[in-house]
């Protein structure tokens, strides 16, 4: 066991302890704490964005800029893969 794996195990156990300890402090599953933002979205989707689907309203209208970022992520992944495989010609 060279010292790299020992250091790795040390870091891994610290991260494990912190994660386990922090997860029990979050609100229990099924009882979310404050919900003011989501209640506003649920009650106002139909007249503000005109859709019945709350999730699509958040994805394309309330937080539409994230979806533009996400479309850019997919675009850059395609450009990256095509850049890496540019030597592959039919």
């Amino acid at each position, binding site marked *: 066991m060279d010292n790299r*794996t020992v250091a*790795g195990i040390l*870091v*891994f156990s610290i*991260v*494990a302890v912190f*994660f*386990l300890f922090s*997860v*029990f402090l*979050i609100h*229990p*599953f*099924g*009882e*979310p704490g404050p*919900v003011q*933002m*989501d*209640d506003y*979205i*649920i*009650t106002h*989707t*139909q007249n503000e964005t005109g859709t*019945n*689907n*709350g*999730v699509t*309203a*958040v*994805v394309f209208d309330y*937080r539409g800029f*994230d*979806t533009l*970022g*996400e479309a850019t*992520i*997919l675009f*850059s*992944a395609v450009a*990256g*893969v095509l850049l*890496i*495989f540019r030597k592959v010609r039919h």
Partner: protein
Amino acid sequence: MIEYIPFIAVVAMILIGLYAVMFRRNLIKIVIGISIIESGVNLFLIILGYRDGGVAPIFTSLPPGTKYPEEMVLPVPQALTLTSIVIGVAVLALMLSLVMHIYRKYGTLDVQKIRRLKE
């Protein structure tokens, strides 16, 4: 205790994925480790948005009599998870194409051997 089991599952997935990324030497296993961490974090985001007995926040043919802000699941974490899933696909595609090229170049997927071949 029963309502913290989903969070324990999240921590277990994140730690398993982190173990694979840190200690495994095979490139494909590192990629699999990262997608395990990614699905762990997605599960974490989804769990935060659940309300007991909640219905999907969609008004088309909603079961009659559901009081909709209280008995609906929160929509924002689902939108965040959608973005995170697409990020996972993009990162996975890029990593796998790199691994294909590294395998063609060095003939092995073992990180130690690649480092030795390079010198």
